């Protein structure tokens, strides 16, 4: 699954072993945007042993925060179920708000390996 970036959505690639998301996220219809991604992610996680995720967001709106929260929950649940899940939250060194967001999402990650990466 590969989605090109639009004005309001990030570029997303989902393969058997990895997911990458990069750009800005404030979709017109958050449910229509989120559902296929969460479904595809859950499917890939079920079929694999090791999965890695890389997120590099410049901006997301408050509706997307809920999507990201659900997204991380899917990953943590898979890790709790015994999958090896690693996550990188990438943020620019000058971007304090994306750093804080990364820290906050990371607080709930116990079994998944969660790293903040300054770029």
């Amino acid at each position, binding site marked *: 699954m590969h989605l090109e970036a639009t*004005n*309001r959505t990030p570029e997303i690639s989902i393969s058997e072993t990895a997911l990458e998301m990069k750009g800005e996220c*404030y979709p*017109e*219809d*958050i449910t229509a945007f989120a559902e296929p991604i969460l479904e595809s992610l859950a499917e890939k996680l079920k079929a694999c042993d090791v999965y890695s995720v890389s997120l590099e967001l*410049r*901006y997301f*709106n*408050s*509706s997307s*925060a*809920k999507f990201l*929260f659900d997204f991380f929950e899917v990953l943590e649940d898979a890790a709790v179920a015994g999958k090896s899940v690693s996550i990188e939250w990438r943020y620019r060194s*000058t*971007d*304090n*708000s994306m750093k*804080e967001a990364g820290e*906050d999402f990371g*607080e709930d990650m116990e079994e998944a390996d969660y790293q903040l990466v300054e770029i």
Partner: protein
Amino acid sequence: MDSHDFHKLLLSRGTFFCYSGLLSEEVLTAISGIVREQVTDIDNNENLTTRVFGIFVEQAQNIIRYSEERLALGGIGTVAIGHSNDGFIVEAINPMNAENVERLKENLKDLQQMDSKDLRKAYKQRLREGPPEGSKGAGLGFIEIARKSSKFEFDFVESPDVLFVLKAWIVP
């Protein structure tokens, strides 16, 4: 007021962007690129302009979702962005249901009292608990505006229906 006076009024108060009318997600898509470009043209501090843009999106989506005056695709309201030596201001005005005024007022007063640490905590708690009853989004919009702004003010003007006014200042 003459048309040119209206134009001059906007310029005199530093308003460089103003949209008034039906706001829908489609309209937001159409104008967001222009808003970004204008804000970035005024200030090249990317963190600052992302805060301004983020508040603009939340304000616009409030009108889309909650304006009391509705058309099929969205809500009627006004959203404007201005700039002065002090920084940016994002303003939104829309009619609202008088029944919700008290609750909204209390909610916004609470947010005004919070410092950045409290707001960060409130945002996270809301995220965990899920949207409150009656919310059409994540229930995070006002917390987000409070977090990203330097300060914000609100007013409820009876004229005769209630107009909700929300102003957020963003300074470096």
